[in-house]
């Protein structure tokens, strides 16, 4: 696989890890948050933690859209799916997310709901065309990377006058969440961020500049292959050593300062910033999510079905909140791998393989000697 395999070479990884060992100052701690679940997954999948010096600690952040989706929003999706006139289309990632009353979209399907897994928004549009007598709702989740395809679907639906199509919009934004983490007084001390490159392919690296400057933290926009992650760690260590707090890009092969102007413009036409949005584990985060733009109100499932948001507290024993904020590690949670496991997830961090808990359960558990 061109542009993939070259960035997965074990021999180069060992050389780069040795380079990082020479860079770190032994008397110093480097607490780096990889904001994005994709990085969490890569770090776990390739065992990168074991290659790094002990004084570099990688902290898993809240960048897994499934993990930060609050229960109330999944409840609303389930409520929609259970309506006999609705076909709910969703990416595969959301189907197993636990909601209230031990429900999930999978359970809803078993109860007769018409839930269709789609790979792309264009599949959801096709389902709407093929089922003119049904209401077809696209359950939109994801960060800035996943948002432009939803924007295109809205534009396409309007062009085609697809009256039976609507979007339940749950798109969230990365920089406001990063700002929120840094602003919280009780947050774990962080020395720098490994930033998500696919988000920046769309929004560019520039939106992080204000956060980096305001909180004096370096950010490196990093690719998702293991060598990309290692190089980004090296770049952060160098910034920290030099006392620099800049936004740098490691994933220069697809990230520019401005990102994808065409994609950003489509999003601006079709969606609008919400005043506030609840993130699982983080609570209400101001200006951190998008709603359907008033110009596209006819395709807004929240309006069409008069969905009312209800806050639902997380399971009492679940530490997803503290884990997403970087205050606790999965193995610090009392229910981790005991009552909460990938077959029966209590919290959202165990659902997606990108979630900090699922990644640790699948890939790193034996290091701690935890029983299965």
């Amino acid at each position, binding site marked *: 696989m*061109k542009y993939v395999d*070259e960035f997965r070479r074990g021999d180069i990884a060992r*050389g780069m890890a040795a380079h990082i060992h020479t860079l770190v100052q032994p008397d110093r701690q480097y607490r780096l948050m990889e904001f994005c679940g994709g990085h969490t997954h890569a770090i776990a999948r390739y065992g990168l933690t074991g290659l790094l010096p002990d004084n570099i600690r990688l902290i898993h952040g809240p960048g897994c859209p499934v993990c930060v989706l609050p229960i109330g929003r999944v409840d609303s999706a389930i409520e929609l799916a259970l309506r006999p006139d609705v076909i709910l289309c969703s990416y595969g990632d959301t189907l197993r997310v636990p909601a209230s009353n031990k429900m999930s979209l999978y359970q809803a399907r078993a109860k007769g709901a018409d839930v269709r897994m789609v790979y792309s928004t264009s599949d959801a549009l096709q389902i709407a065309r093929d089922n003119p007598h049904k209401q077809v709702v696209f359950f939109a989740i994801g960060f800035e990377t996943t948002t432009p395809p939803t924007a295109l679907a809205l534009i396409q639906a309007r062009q085609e006058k697809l009256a039976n199509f609507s979007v339940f919009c749950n798109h969230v934004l990365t920089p406001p969440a990063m700002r929120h983490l840094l602003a919280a007084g009780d947050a774990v001390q962080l020395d720098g961020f490994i930033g998500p490159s696919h988000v920046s392919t769309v929004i560019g690296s520039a939106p992080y500049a204000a956060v980096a400057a305001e909180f004096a933290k370096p950010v490196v926009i990093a690719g998702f292959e293991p060598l990309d992650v290692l190089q980004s760690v090296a770049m952060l260590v160098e910034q920290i050593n030099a006392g620099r707090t800049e936004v740098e890009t*490691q994933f220069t092969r697809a990230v520019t300062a401005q990102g*994808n102007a065409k994609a950003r413009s489509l999003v601006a036409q079709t969606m609008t910033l919400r005043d506030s949005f609840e993130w699982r584990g983080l609570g209400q985060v101001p200006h951190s999510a998008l709603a359907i733009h008033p110009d596209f109100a006819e395709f807004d499932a929240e309006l069409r079905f008069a969905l009312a948001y209800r806050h639902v507290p997380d399971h009492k024993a679940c530490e997803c909140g503290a884990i997403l904020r970087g205050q606790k590690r999965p193995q610090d949670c009392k229910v981790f791998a005991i009552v909460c496991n990938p077959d029966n997830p209590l919290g959202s961090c165990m659902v997606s393989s990108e979630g900090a808990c699922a990644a640790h359960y699948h890939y790193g558990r034996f290091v701690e000697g935890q029983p299965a």
Partner: protein
Amino acid sequence: MCLAMPVRISQLLPDDMAVVDMDGVSREVSVALIDTPQEGDYVILHVGYAIGKLDAEEAARTLALMDQLAASQSEATP
């Protein structure tokens, strides 16, 4: 957070669609989000949409830098 991969545009189709391929596997994707897609371009693919172009020169530069760092270490620690 967002699973995306580099793929090569092998054929442009009408309506902002294109065939992309990787190692003999191909699929139809949308190129509506990028400017002036060309056959032979590598793009970053996410949920059926090309979200950006891949800059081959920058990729080569990154790889060269990685090789150089790794090589300097293997010389330093025989």
